[in-house]
C-alpha cells in the first residue's frame, strides 16, 4: 500500500472508536476512512471481499467527479455525500471536512435513512479529529491530480495485472 499518512496511536484509536460505533449502529459490512487523494487512514469490518486500497482510490475518484458535477450545477457546497444503491450492496460516501472521505459499504436492505443519520453523526465526530490530523501533518492535505492519478493507476494496474 502506497501511503505516507501516519496517525498517532491516540488519534488512530479515537477514529477507530467512531468507526466501530458506526458499524455497530448500522450493521454496515465495512467502513473505510481515506483522504481525498484516496489514501487509506483506517478501516473497520469485513475486508475479505474487497481490496480496501482500491476501494479508497476509486471512491476518491467518484467523490472528486461528484464534487465537480455539483459545482457545474451551481451547488455551493460541493462536498456533500452520495449514495450508490445496489441490488445486494450499497455504497455511501460522505465528505469529512472536505479533505477526507468516509466510505460505508452496507447491505442494500439497510434503511438509507439509518445510514444517513449515523453517517452524518460519524462525520461530525470525525471532523475535529481530521483537523487535528491535518495540523499534525503540518498543512492541509491538498488534492493533487498527479498524486491521485498515480494512486489510481497503481491500483488499477494491480486489478488488471495478468489480463
Amino acid at each position, binding site marked *: 500500500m502506497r501511503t505516507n499518512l501516519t496517525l498517532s496511536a491516540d488519534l488512530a484509536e479515537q477514529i477507530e472508536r467512531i468507526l466501530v460505533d458506526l458499524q455497530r449502529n448500522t450493521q454496515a459490512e465495512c467502513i473505510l476512512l481515506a483522504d481525498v487523494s484516496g489514501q487509506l487512514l483506517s478501516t473497520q469490518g469485513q475486508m475479505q471481499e474487497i481490496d480496501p486500497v482500491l476501494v479508497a482510490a476509486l471512491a476518491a475518484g467518484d467523490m472528486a467527479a461528484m464534487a465537480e458535477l455539483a459545482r457545474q450545477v451551481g451547488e455551493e457546497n460541493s462536498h456533500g455525500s452520495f449514495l450508490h444503491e445496489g441490488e445486494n450492496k450499497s455504497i455511501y460516501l460522505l465528505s469529512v471536512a472536505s479533505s477526507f472521505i468516509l466510505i460505508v459499504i452496507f447491505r442494500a436492505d439497510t*434503511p438509507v435513512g*439509518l445510514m444517513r443519520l449515523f453517517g452524518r*453523526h460519524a462525520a461530525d465526530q470525525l471532523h475535529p479529529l481530521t483537523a487535528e490530523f491535518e495540523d499534525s501533518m503540518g498543512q492541509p492535505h491538498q488534492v493533487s491530480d498527479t498524486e491521485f492519478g498515480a494512486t489510481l493507476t497503481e491500483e488499477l494496474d494491480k486489478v488488471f495485472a495478468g489480463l
Partner: protein
Amino acid sequence: MATEPTPLDQILYTLNDAGQFKASVLAATDGLSIATVHSGYNSDTTAAMVALLQKVAREAQGELGMAKVDEVTIRDRDCTRLVCRYLSVEGEGLILAVVVPSGHPYRHVTNRAIRQIRQLLS
C-alpha cells in the same frame, strides 16, 4: 443472510412489544425510514406519510402561533390511532410513529423510547 438488529431496531422492538403496537417506525423528517418493526405496513410509505403529517403540523403550528408540536394523532373509526411523536437530536429532526390499537396507552412507552434514542445519538 440475516444481520444482527441495530441498537435502534432493538429500541423499536422493545417499544412495539411493550405497547403491543401494530407497527413502529422511526423516520427522518424528510420521509426516509431509519428503523422499523416489520408489520403489514410498508415502512417506506409509512415513513413518507408521517413526514408529510409533520410538514402539515409544522405549517399549522406556524399559522396558528402554537408552541412546538409534540405529537400528532390520527384516529380511525375503530379507534386505532397513528401517533407521531417528534424529537430533535443533535440537529436531526426525527419522527417516532406507532400504530396503537384501541384502548392501549402509548405515552409512557414512547417517552421511554425517545429517551433511549436521544441517548444513543448523543
